[in-house]
């Protein structure tokens, strides 16, 4: 029996926001739905959104789900998460936000949270007139024919969720969970991404070495320090990390001690320490802050 959290069971037995939203033709209001999955796959979600056109705020969200306990709970959680958000804010909702709202999901059920995130994206794309088939998500080589999972989608989910094992990829995407023919191809993609991530600190340091360095000798005020650190992060470090699916943000500064938050593929990456110490810290020291120490924090 699956070990579901109490929150999952609560939302399964007493789901909120179930059903469809009908378009009442109200002024300044649009109704749209996004759908992912199918009966053949064993789970499907139709997410309905009621949107205020002038502000792009989500006024209401409802779901219709064919699926298991965690699929129903994930759908219900999603509707609670997105209500009140703008569409741009909603697009930032990740499958982990859904899983965290539920107090976690069994690893083998993480694909239910992914389904929620993808249904949300599908609904917003539909509202904005972006054809889903034009989205890079659906383009590219079909790797898993059993569950129609493309290579770009596999790459995106691996990077967004810091997946490190083949089993995790299957749990999150179902890819490889059918006939198993594609397992080798999925593993190749996983290994390629891991190799790329492992090489980031080295490549980052190499690219930063080409940046003109200013050697400010004068003592700086805290405001000047923050400004310089932000400038170096934004202009020199973030573009390199983003190219590999990662990111970094300045969190806090206390004297010469800087705290940063690694995001995306960098968060939880096996090379995160090297990224912080040998790339970010080294670069900031070279840019006129020789006594600076940089530490990663999790928020």
């Amino acid at each position, binding site marked *: 029996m*699956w070990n579901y959290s109490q929150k999952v*069971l609560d939302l*399964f*037995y007493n*789901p909120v926001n*179930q*059903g469809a939203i009908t378009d009442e033709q109200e002024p300044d209001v649009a109704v749209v739905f996004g*759908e992912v999955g*199918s*009966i*053949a796959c*064993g*789970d*499907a*979600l*139709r997410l309905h959104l009621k949107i205020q056109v002038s502000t792009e705020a989500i006024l209401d969200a409802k*779901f*219709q*789900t*064919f*699926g*298991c*306990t965690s*699929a*129903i709970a994930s759908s219900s959680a999603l509707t609670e998460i997105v209500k009140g958000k703008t569409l741009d804010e909603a697009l930032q909702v990740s499958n982990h936000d859904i899983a965290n709202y539920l107090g976690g999901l069994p690893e*083998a059920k993480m694909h239910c949270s992914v389904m929620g995130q993808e249904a949300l994206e599908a609904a917003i794309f539909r509202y904005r007139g972006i054809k889903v088939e034009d989205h890079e998500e659906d383009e590219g080589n079909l790797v898993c024919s059993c*569950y129609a999972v493309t290579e770009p989608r596999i790459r995106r989910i691996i990077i967004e969720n810091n997946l490190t094992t083949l089993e995790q990829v*299957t749990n999150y995407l*179902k890819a490889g*969970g*059918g006939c198993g023919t594609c397992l080798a191809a999925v593993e190749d993609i996983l290994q390629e991404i891991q190799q790329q991530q492992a090489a980031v600190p080295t490549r980052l340091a190499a690219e930063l070495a080409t940046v003109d360095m200013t050697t400010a000798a004068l003592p700086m005020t805290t405001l000047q320090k923050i400004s310089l650190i932000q400038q170096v992060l934004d202009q020199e470090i973030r573009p390199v990390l983003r190219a590999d699916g990662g990111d970094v943000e300045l969190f806090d500064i206390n004297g010469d001690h800087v705290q940063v938050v690694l995001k995306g593929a960098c968060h939880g990456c096996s090379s995160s320490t090297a990224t912080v110490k040998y790339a970010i810290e080294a670069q900031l020291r070279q840019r006129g802050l020789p006594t600076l120490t940089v530490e990663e924090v999790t928020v």
Partner: protein
Amino acid sequence: MVIYLDNNATTRVDPDVLEAMLPYLSDLYGNPSSMHSFGGQVGADILKARGQVAELLGAEETEIIFNSCGSEGNNTAIHAALAAQPDKRHIVTTAVEHPAILNVCKHLEKKGYRVTYLSVDRRGQLDLLELEAAMTGGTALVTTMYANNETGVIFPVEQIGAITKDYGATFHVDAVQAVGKVPIDLSTSTIDMLTLSGHKLHAPKGIGALYVRRGFRFRPFLLGGHQERGRRAGTQNVPGIVALGKAAELAQTHLYNVERERRLRDLLETQLQSQIPDCEVNGGGASRLPNTTNIGFKYIEGEAILFMLNQYGICASSGSACTSGSLEPSHVLMAMQLPYVILHGSIRFSLSRFTTEHEIRQVLTVMPGIVDKLRSLSPFNNDRADWLQSRNVA
């Protein structure tokens, strides 16, 4: 309160079985292989249990080999059949066997054996013409179930055996789900080997037996000591063996009362179908075990149904992908080529002699509401036929 309708998964230990085995977990702890009377008296009790199991099957005592479980019995039978005719490299089985057969066959394919997996029809039945066509002079083994664990569909084992014998192949039957539920008489049978498992007939887990027809050139799978007349090494599980003997004796008694189970199963089946639209019996119309029904509820998913039932203390199982631990729905229902809308919403109820009419009525009371609730959540419930047909899943 638990309403246990998952008896094809495992059964409760009969109180009389428990009583029979308890002394061997306390005072009577001797090893039957010992040369003293303390162990010797235990040996006599094993002999009695062997007789009880043999009698249930219409077999001789010497044809019963005690082992640990159904999986061991199946592995042993396949190994023994291939060892008996090492020059033959072909196996025939069915697409709906238990993994303890299928995964052994897949392993043997990697070792160079050719395996034919017979298909089943929409009712889960075999086509004997397909079996006949598959057989060759190089076929070493035909191994089939007696009855399917998911649908309860019974295979015509004696007809299969007759065809098997025409080609000089060994015939093994996995009867784990059938023993104790249908009468079996091996005295006039074509079956060479037959697997049974204790926990499916109200004995504890960890005890099983393999019937091996007298005269069959048996080669042991587990090598070591001389136990089980040199055919299965390992210190004998005396409490389990005694329990299996008692369970076999009780099963024989209850075989005459199996119509009660069939009546309750039919009550459950017909009432669910009359109360709930858009559901169908998987394997309905075929010859089936009296205790099993497998019903597909369209537009909803099996794991969700199980969790709803669990709220009422009702235990059942499902062939849906979400319950499998993998991502694939039941290979049995897939082999029957059932539409996805049926197999993802399939629920198996399996009764036992302990099942009461009150329990069945309880299920009938709550099941329509559960289905209604889940269908109210489903995006497909209102789309129905048009939507499904457009996606070729109807």
